Each structure stands twice: as structure tokens, then as C-alpha cells.
């Protein structure tokens, strides 16, 4: 006798249909439309009253014009590559900062570990915006950082409204997402593997590079992808800490949507971003499947 799947098995499909597939279809449709000076500011619109003829003319009016415009305009390409570069750079910094933290926590006693993991997540209990505004207060020309530098006789730094400001914000905001997956693999690593390596003649440092580090690569990959993907499309951090100089896709989309009222362009940028992020997302999925398959 076959058991029927419970209704709950449908829940994820339903959710994804309502909150991902339908909105995404709308965005794709928008990106294929043309800008018009009207309300709403795009054409064509589906005319149900016209029946199948209306449907035909609707589809006939959709085209790739907007994408052609994006590809030929340096501004879009520049902000696209600038986003990838900043997110990539931030990911590298996150790895360099996050690895020692994760390693340190994993080496602590049981009690200390719980406290440290908790402390790592604790800042998330205050509003994200407040924390970013706090960074403005720290980084601004007469802010806390420069006051501290001045008090020890060092020249002031210009960080706010530069790419450095964006990187500070990204690294700060995404650190837990790098540390937690790394911590997860380091913490469950079998201690006897390190002992075996030392037993076979490795110094503690040698054992780290030959055993601990290679075995933690899945955690590093997971952390890097979890951080990199949303950082590419990040809007709030570049907007508040990067000033007008910093080009990032999140800001470009916002500008097209609200400043230029160019909804098709904004949608096309969003679709292009998603498609280009599919590559790392698929890589991540593959890698996760491999880890779980063990």
C-alpha cells in the first residue's frame, strides 16, 4: 500500500510559488517591457478584456531591448564589476578575519564555546540600521576613530564614503555568517586526527596545514558563498557607508527604480544579477550535497 505524502510536503512548493516564482515572473516580464511616461511607467500591460488577441499583442510587445541597453551602457557594467570586486574583496577579508576566530572558538572549553558563539550572534539583537549608523559615527571625519588617532598623534583617516567604508561595513555585518559555518566544521573535527598527524611526525603547525585546514575547506566554502552572494546585491551598507562614489548593483537598482522611474531597467539589472549569482549558488548546492552525502 502506498502512503500518500502529507499535505505539509506541499508547503515549500506553495511558498516558493507565491513568494518566489510569481514575483520573479513579474520581474522578468517587467524587464522585457518598455519604459513609458505613464502610471505605471511601463508597457505593455496585459489586457484581459481583449481575449486571445490581447494576449498575442502583449507577448509581441515584449523584447530584450532593455538588456541591450544595459550591455551597451558602461555605467551598468561598471557597477556590476564593482559589486563583484567589492563582494569578493570583502569575502577574502572575512575569511582572513573569520578563520582565526572560528578556530579559536572551536579550541575553547565547552562552556566558553557556548558563550563565545552567543556573543558572536548577540549584536544581531539590535537593529541592523542602528549598527550601521553607529559605524557612521565611528568613521566620519570627526568621528570616534579619528579622535582616537588624533589623541595618539596620528593623522586622520578618510574611510566614510569610500570603498574602504563599504568593506568595513560588509565585513562587520557578515562576519557571523563566515564564522558559524567554519566553526561548525572545526568543532566537529575529530581530535584524534590531529593526534594521529602529530604521532606520525608533524609539528602542531604542520598538523594544522596538512589536516585541520584541508578538512575545514567545506566550511570555508560555505561561509564564503553565504557571504558573497548577498553582498553582491547589498544596498544599505554601500548606500550609508559608501557615499555617492561607490558603485554597487543594489544602489543601481534603487536609482533606476526610484530616481529614474525606469522600472524595466531596474528589473533587468535584478534579473541579470540573479542569473550571474546562479553560478556560485549552484556551486554551493553541489558542495553541500557532497558534504551531506558522506
Amino acid at each position, binding site marked *: 500500500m502506498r502512503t500518500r505524502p502529507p499535505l505539509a510536503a506541499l508547503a515549500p512548493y506553495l511558498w516558493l510559488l507565491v513568494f518566489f516564482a510569481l514575483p520573479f515572473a513579474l520581474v522578468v516580464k517587467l524587464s522585457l517591457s518598455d519604459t513609458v511616461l505613464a502610471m505605471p511607467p511601463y508597457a505593455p500591460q496585459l489586457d484581459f478584456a481583449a481575449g486571445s488577441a490581447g494576449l498575442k499583442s502583449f507577448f509581441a510587445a515584449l523584447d530584450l531591448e532593455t538588456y541591450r541597453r544595459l550591455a551597451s551602457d558602461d555605467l551598468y557594467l561598471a557597477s556590476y564589476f564593482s559589486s563583484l570586486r567589492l563582494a569578493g574583496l570583502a569575502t577574502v577579508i572575512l575569511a582572513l578575519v573569520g578563520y582565526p576566530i572560528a578556530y579559536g572558538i572551536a579550541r575553547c572549553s565547552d562552556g566558553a564555546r557556548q558563550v563565545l558563539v552567543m556573543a558572536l550572534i548577540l549584536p544581531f539583537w539590535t537593529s541592523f540600521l542602528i549598527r550601521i549608523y553607529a559605524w557612521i559615527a565611528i568613521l566620519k571625519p570627526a568621528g570616534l576613530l579619528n579622535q582616537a588617532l588624533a589623541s595618539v598623534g596620528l593623522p586622520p583617516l578618510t574611510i566614510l564614503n569610500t570603498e574602504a567604508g563599504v568593506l568595513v561595513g560588509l565585513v562587520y555585518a557578515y562576519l557571523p555568517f563566515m564564522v558559524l559555518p567554519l566553526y561548525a566544521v572545526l568543532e566537529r573535527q575529530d581530535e584524534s586526527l590531529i*593526534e594521529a*598527524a*602529530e*604521532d*606520525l611526525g608533524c609539528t602542531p603547525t604542520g598538523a594544522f596545514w596538512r589536516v585541520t585546514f584541508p578538512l575545514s575547506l567545506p566550511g570555508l566554502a560555505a561561509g564564503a558563498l553565504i557571504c558573497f552572494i548577498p553582498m553582491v546585491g547589498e544596498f544599505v551598507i554601500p548606500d550609508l557607508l559608501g557615499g555617492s562614489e561607490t558603485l554597487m548593483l543594489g544602489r543601481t537598482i534603487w536609482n533606476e527604480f526610484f530616481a529614474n522611474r525606469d522600472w524595466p531597467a531596474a528589473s533587468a539589472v535584478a534579473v541579470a544579477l540573479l542569473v550571474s549569482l546562479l553560478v556560485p549558488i549552484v556551486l554551493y548546492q553541489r558542495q553541500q550535497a557532497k558534504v551531506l552525502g558522506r
Partner: protein
Amino acid sequence: MDTGPDRAVTSKPHVGAVRSGFAPWEDPQARPLVRFEAVTKRFDGEIAVDAASLDIHEREFFALLGPSGCGKTTLMRMLAGFETPDEGRILLDGQDIAGLPPHRRPVHMMFQSYALFPHLSVARNVAFGLRAQGLGKREITDRVEEMLALVKLEGMGGRKPHQLSGGQRQRVALARAIAPKPRILLLDEPLAALDRKLREDTQFELMGLQHSLGMTFLIVTHDREEAMVVADRIAVMRAGRIAQVGRPAEVYEAPANRYVADFIGDVNLFEGRVEAAEGGVVRLGSPEAPQGFTGFVETSHAIGSQAWIAVRPEKMRLHLDPPPAGPNRLGGRVADIGYLGDWTTYVVEVAPGRTVRAACANTARTVERPIARDDAIWLTFAPDAGVVLVE
């Protein structure tokens, strides 16, 4: 029924079987490869190893045997360098190795969990210690091939550990530990994860390997049969202390105390008081046997002191008709019979609630007078069959 004629008692008998003439521990001049000197280890005040002293000689196959939690692994880990003794010294080749980190000790360990590196192939696992020694590429490849052939894993070098069976993993761990030619190989319950048949085969393979490599092996186990099969000598441990060290036959046939007698196989213990002790013969008075017990001893015993006589079940003789009166004679009723094919174990109730075990080898296919449950029966044993214990 009689299991055999009385054995002629020689004046200076050998205890049990001697496997070979290899016995460097009997030479007082010989310097042991490893010497534990009153080594003590505590964890948070709890004593794990208690003033353990032990000598292990070059080319010896030495077993640490004891129940779970008695400190076997801890003793071994102190030799490997993963734990530091609180008191006492450990000498390797006469040198105190305190302060030497694990990676500088010429001692390799085969871990209970095997601890194979999951990200490395079988060949690279085996090569791990060789690379750390700084050997050349060619040498490493040759030696890995040699090791894989030795443990019968030719052609498996490219596999990852998770693609191997438990038995194959065990052999990779073994190859990895012996590849860099340690002075002494430590094996922590190496066969615990294998099924019975494979375990028995592997025991003999281990012995062959140890012999052909001429290496010193220290094995930890809580399986007494395993220890008896593989080891030249066994140290029986109890709650952190070394209870006895000796050849398998010595710890079996001449246990030093009741604990060892009981731990190394089945034993019947008869309690009594020393009534006479002269000329190497002790007589114990006991309410269990009408004429008491007699046994041969090498040490002296004070008259009136408490003592036990320990007799292995296979050294008890069963009689269907009352044997002539004398010492070492008990009457009883058969309470249970366990037929094992090669052996039959009889549980005989000699007093209400008090049972004695006797084991008989089934040397013939047929018996004239079978023994059944509730049959009245008599048990005897020869004076040299029992060991007199005071502890």
C-alpha cells in the same frame, strides 16, 4: 566418568605452554626498550594510572589487558606523548622521554578509531609519516607499495578511506603506523571493531607481521583471549594498577591473586584456613570439602591464615561413582549443563546456592554413561591443579 589419569607430578614443573625461547625479560642484564617507572596519572584528582611499573623489551609483543576504564589507554598515551605523567618516569632506550613532544617520539600509535585522514587517499595516508620524515618521492612511493602489499591492500592506494570496509580501514591504519618504522608500535584495541572471524584471522596476521618486521608491539585490549593469543607477555591491569605481568600461560595457570585468576578466564575459588604447610605442600581446612584441600606452593604460608585455592574448570574431574575419600573432593548435584561442541561445561551445586564449574573436553563422540541434570556427582582435582592465593 574420569577425564584422564592422574598426571605425574614432577618436582619443578613448567607452568603452561612456552611458545618460543624468546624471553629477554628473564635476563636481568637486558636493558628494556621501554621502561615505566612508578608512573602515576590523575585526571582532575581521579587516579587513572597508579604507580605503574613495566618493562617492555625489544621485539616483544606486549599486551595491556584489563576491564574498561582501568587506565590502559592512558598508559599508552603517556608513552606516545599525548598525556604527561604526574609522577614517575618513562624511559625509551634508557632515556627519559619526558618533555619530548609526540612528533619527536619514535613511537607510533594505531588509534582505536583508526583516525584515518578522510581527505587523503589510502596511499597518501600511508605516506603521511614518511613525508613528515622528509623522505624522497621515490622512496616514499616504494615504501607505500611495500606497506600496502604487506597488509594485502595492493591496488587500493587510490581509494579514499570512506570507500573501504572496516577491515580494510583497520589495515590502512596499521600500514600507516608501521610505514615510518617506529621503535615501538602502539595498538589501542586494534581489532575491537571487527567481527569475530575477521578478528581471529587478523590476530594471527598481526603476530606474523610483528615477527617478520622484528618490531616491538604494545597492544591494548580488554579481550583476554586476544591478549593470550597474540602476546609474548601480558600485563593485567586493575583500577590503574598493574596486577600481574607474565607470559599468557603464567597469568592463566599461576595467577598472582584472585582478581587475575577471575579476570583471566573462569575459575573456581575455594576459601579455607591454612592448617599445615611444609615441603611445598599446603593443606587448607574448609567446610566445603570434608577432608579440606591441598595444593603445591613455592612461598611459605602462616598456619591459621586465610587462603584461597583457585582451580580452572577444565582441571576439575567429574566422577559418577564416589571416588575414594581424600582431600580436594566435593560432592554435589548437576544444576546445569552447557554443551559447546568441543567442550561441555557442568555447573555443579555443591551446597545450597554455591556452584562449582567443571569443563570436560568431548574427546569421544559417544559416552557410556551420560550425565543429566540433577544427577549426583563428585568432583576432585589434583594437588597441582589448584593455585593457592592469599590476596
